[in-house]
């Protein structure tokens, strides 16, 4: 999974933002430090970025910076859990998660009137997987406890969740984001979920009232 990189110069050209904005967003933690990849080029040292990620992020910042302050944006992009509580009814009404996902998840995260961000995230990811049609409810049931137990062990929750299947037997694993993995033949990757992306999506949906 070699990511395509884009140089800083090309990025500024393509997006029309200025050096000042780029550095300001970096200072405000809207652009994570690990996206700044320093390489030496024939013109001296140059900074590169993972192309797709940075373009998506800049697109979001540019579109939303009129409505939200930079600090609010930073809060949204940060992988840290937000301190919120929301009722499940509202989540279903607002179409963030489906009723099926809620029912399945209840056994693991407990039934309560109001859900924390972490609980919501679990349901959201489960819902996402179920909606994709790739996994069965049973697999969803094994997924949740595994996810809950391990995803916090990754630095800033930078992990991917992968579901494998070989001869009908499924295996679930969590690996660092973007990590390369190889298998014996016959193993099929059913699903790969980028957790930070899910967190960001969920925050975005929760904020859009």
């Amino acid at each position, binding site marked *: 999974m070699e990511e395509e990189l884009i140089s800083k*110069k090309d990025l500024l050209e393509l997006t029309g933002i*200025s*050096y*000042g904005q780029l*550095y*300001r967003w970096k*200072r405000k933690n809207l652009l994570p430090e690990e996206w700044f990849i320093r390489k030496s080029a024939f*013109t*001296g*040292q140059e900074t590169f970025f993972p192309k797709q990620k940075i373009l998506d992020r800049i697109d979001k910042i540019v579109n939303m910076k009129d409505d939200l302050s930079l600090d609010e944006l930073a809060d949204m992009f940060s992988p840290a859990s937000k301190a919120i509580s929301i009722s499940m009814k509202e989540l279903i009404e607002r179409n963030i998660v489906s009723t099926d996902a809620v029912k399945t998840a209840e056994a693991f995260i407990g039934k309560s009137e109001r859900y924390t961000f972490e609980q919501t995230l679990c349901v959201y990811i489960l819902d996402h997987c179920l909606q994709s049609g790739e996994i069965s409810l049973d697999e969803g049931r094994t997924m949740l406890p595994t996810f809950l137990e391990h995803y916090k062990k990754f630095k800033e929750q930078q992990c991917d969740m992968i579901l494998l299947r070989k001869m009908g037997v499924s295996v679930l694993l969590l690996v660092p984001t973007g990590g390369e993995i190889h298998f014996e033949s016959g193993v099929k990757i059913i699903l790969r979920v980028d957790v930070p992306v899910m967190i960001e999506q969920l925050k975005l949906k929760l904020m859009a009232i």
Partner: protein
Amino acid sequence: MNDRVAEREARSLTITGSSSVMGGSYDRVKIVGEGEIVGDTTCNKLTCIGTLAADGTIAGEKMSIVGTCDIKGGLQGGSLKTSGTVSVSGITRLRELGISGTIEAKDHIYAEQIRLRGMLQTLGDCEAEEFSGRGIFEIGGLLSADKLNIHLYRDCKANEIGGGVIRIRRASLLNPLSLFFKPSSSARLLVSVMEGDHIYLENTIADIVRGNKVEIGPGCEIGLVEYKEFYEQKKGAVVKDKRKV
């Protein structure tokens, strides 16, 4: 018992003479003489005249240090004014930082505003919305600010500089500060890469300068300038290569 008292109301801590105390949560901390604080400390106001050694993190809303302060943990909070020497091993994160003395940091320094009238040294990055410097700095990583205004008194160094408006000038002899801190006429800024929207440079030695509008003034030696809209080179500047991108 300390905890219970602290819950009721934050007490004040005063050290006069020489003493060692436990950290915790205080309203005012005042040290005249020699103090040692063991553990993390939070306070509203911190005044140190003399010597303070802290082995944890210090967080204060309003801090003023005259003398020496050695912090093994991080430093965070509202404003810090120092006319002494402050050394920090952890991350420094403040709203306002006024340096008339010296600050030496092993890690990053983040602040909204940095006003430098003395010396700033860090092995990490230094980030601020506004950075105004009349003094000396040595930054191991990136110096980043929206508005960066520097008057060179002695040789300054940074690995990278980035931001919006960057102005580097020789210090004028007419500034009141110059009366007791005479600027050296050969003071230079050494930087490997500099990037900004508007850049004006004097007495700067850089490998690469990239910007929208770039003005290279006297005393500069630049390897490569890349500019977008505007470029001007003044007399007494050496630029090896320049290109419009």
